[in-house]
């Protein structure tokens, strides 16, 4: 399939090599099995983590402590190639690198960094991130999880988190909780007594991904478990900005996989004596899909360059997450219609991506919240507070 705008010509030779390395990895180690993982609702996190670590994917945009120290565009390109495999794979990497490693790297003590980051970069330790709660999604400021310091200085953590990617397979959880001083982050080893993380089942989306609830029942943590570098919601929100940047690139991969599948199918599926790709209605669908994908690619590349220049603003990430997820979901739905009945089977990647993208539309800031963020920038009026 032709890449109409040849956006990848804008990449440096190193960025193209990163693209090719991740693409080969996904082709060899993920694509042959991912439909089965999806059907069976499993994600072989323990098996894949060290392989992803050896490749250098985990915490790739962080410096030091065994991380690769890549620029933002490289990080984006890698996310794109991972999500061309499956949004669950990219979610694993986003959570590990941007939601679990990033807060330790940015706000952690030297001891916390030394203890966790090298092992997490190597994929020997898996992390998760606990912000969302059963009753607090878009409005995390109202979280009920609470940490209180007892006279010995230990922290006692109580509460629950929900929709936590990697929760049941994690070695360490970054948990955000109310304290007397406001919201703080805690580095919680998952073998701490009182911590439990049952997996959430019956999902119809991100099936090749581990999603869990986290429960804290008088979880006792040493005083040193708190992330010393940040207080307040800006801590978790800064992590989400990192992860959303990966998403606005990642969904390009899902969209590309769907478009490619639709183009291949349209060229080979014969009806009325000719390929369905020769019908104008099909060509119109394919052309709009390609236009949407390339426009999303332009957005991602532009935002990547802003991030590398250090000028990227949170509302610009909202723009990218909102626009690109929407584009990828529309592409997936159109591709599904091109494939007809075959579009609903796991023999083709389309329905898998389509269902996954329904989660991606919601997590890490819903479409609605990102719309209100842009609305606020445009009008100066805050619609949700």
């Amino acid at each position: 399939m032709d890449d109409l705008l040849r956006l990848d010509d804008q990449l440096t030779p190193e960025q193209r090599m990163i693209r090719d390395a991740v693409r080969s990895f996904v082709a060899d180690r993920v694509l042959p099995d991912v439909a089965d993982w999806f059907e069976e609702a499993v994600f072989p996190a323990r098996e894949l983590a060290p392989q992803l670590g050896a490749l250098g994917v985990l915490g790739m945009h962080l410096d030091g402590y065994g991380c690769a120290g890549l620029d933002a565009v490289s990080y984006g390109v890698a996310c794109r190639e991972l999500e061309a495999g499956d949004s669950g794979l990219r979610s694993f990497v986003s959570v590990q690198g941007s939601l679990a490693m990033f807060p330790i790297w940015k706000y952690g003590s030297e001891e916390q960094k030394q203890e966790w980051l090298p092992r997490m970069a190597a994929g020997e330790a898996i992390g998760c991130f606990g912000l969302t709660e059963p009753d607090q999604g878009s409005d995390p400021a109202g979280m009920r999880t609470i940490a209180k310091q007892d006279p010995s200085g230990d922290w006692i953590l109580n509460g629950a988190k929900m929709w936590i990617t990697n929760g049941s397979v994690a070695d360490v959880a970054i948990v955000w909780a109310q304290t007397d001083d406001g919201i703080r982050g805690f580095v919680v080893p998952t073998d701490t007594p009182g911590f439990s993380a049952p997996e959430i089942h019956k999902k119809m989306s991100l099936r090749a991904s581990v999603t869990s609830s986290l429960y804290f029942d008088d979880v006792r943590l040493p005083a040193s478990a708190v992330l010393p570098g940040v207080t307040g919601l800006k801590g978790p929100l800064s992590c989400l900005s990192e992860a959303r940047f990966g998403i606005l690139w990642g969904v390009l991969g899902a969209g590309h996989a769907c478009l490619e599948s639709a183009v291949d199918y349209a060229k080979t599926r014969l009806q009325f004596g000719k390929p369905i790709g020769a019908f104008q209605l099909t060509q119109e669908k394919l052309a709009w899909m390609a236009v949407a994908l390339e426009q999303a690619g332009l957005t991602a590349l532009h935002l990547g360059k802003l991030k590398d220049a250090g000028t990227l603003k949170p509302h610009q990430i909202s723009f990218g997450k909102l626009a690109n997820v929407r584009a990828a979901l529309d592409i997936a739905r159109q591709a599904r219609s091109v494939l007809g009945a075959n579009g609903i089977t796991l023999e083709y990647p389309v329905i898998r991506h389509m269902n996954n993208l329904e989660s991606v539309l919601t997590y890490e800031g819903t479409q609605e919240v990102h719309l209100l963020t842009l609305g606020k920038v445009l009008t100066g009026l805050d619609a949700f507070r």
Partner: protein
Amino acid sequence: MNIVVCVKQVPDTATERKLRPDDKTLDRDAVDGVVNELDEYAVEEALRLKEAHGGEVTVLTMGPAKATETIRKALAMGADKAVHLSDDALHGSDALSTSYAMAQALKKIGFDLVILGSESTDARTGVLAAMLAERLGAPQLTLARKVEVNGSAIAIERITDYGYDKVEATLPAVVSVVEKINEPRYPSFKGIMAAKKKPVEALGIADASVDASAVGLAAAYSEVAEFAAAPPRAAGTIVKDEGDGGVKAADFLASKKFI
């Protein structure tokens, strides 16, 4: 051990490959270049030998400026340095003159072991290892599915139609490998970033003491006389099974001399 891996840039086999209408050579500008797949196995084997025995891995590539991308990939996998033999005079060289130019470069670099893929996906002559060995006066150990080095002794398992041969020789030697030998590593992100800083020496034909009149299109012993696009695949023949399907299938196979 001083190992030199010969790595060729070839057109991506996933794209449509074309010959240039003017001089009937491969149109390298029209397609994306990739590392010849079997050469990746050669790089991997060189890196494993280095990891086991110490030493240095040098990449040698002959090709136009664009072949730098291929060199960088081999360096990202872990090779230490590279030599890029590049000269307009080399354009259109056939296997014989390529082996001459490469051998001259290898003499200049120096080596204990030369290792390369057993053939390239573009020209597919599969003769370079043998020609290099002859020109260098070194033993050739080709089509290796396993390589073992012990001091100055080298032994390989050479795949054959009926199994494998054990071939032994003394270093320095030339080895070509097949895809059964290993599983090439992915270049890691750290390797990719480190490759930027590794030395790549540019070598013209004069630097490698290559006689200009012995290389290039004019000096080639083989010539592409003419070429045409592959014809579109013809429709197959449908044979109806009227109780004699087995006989018809056997007749077909016999007519093609399969049985």
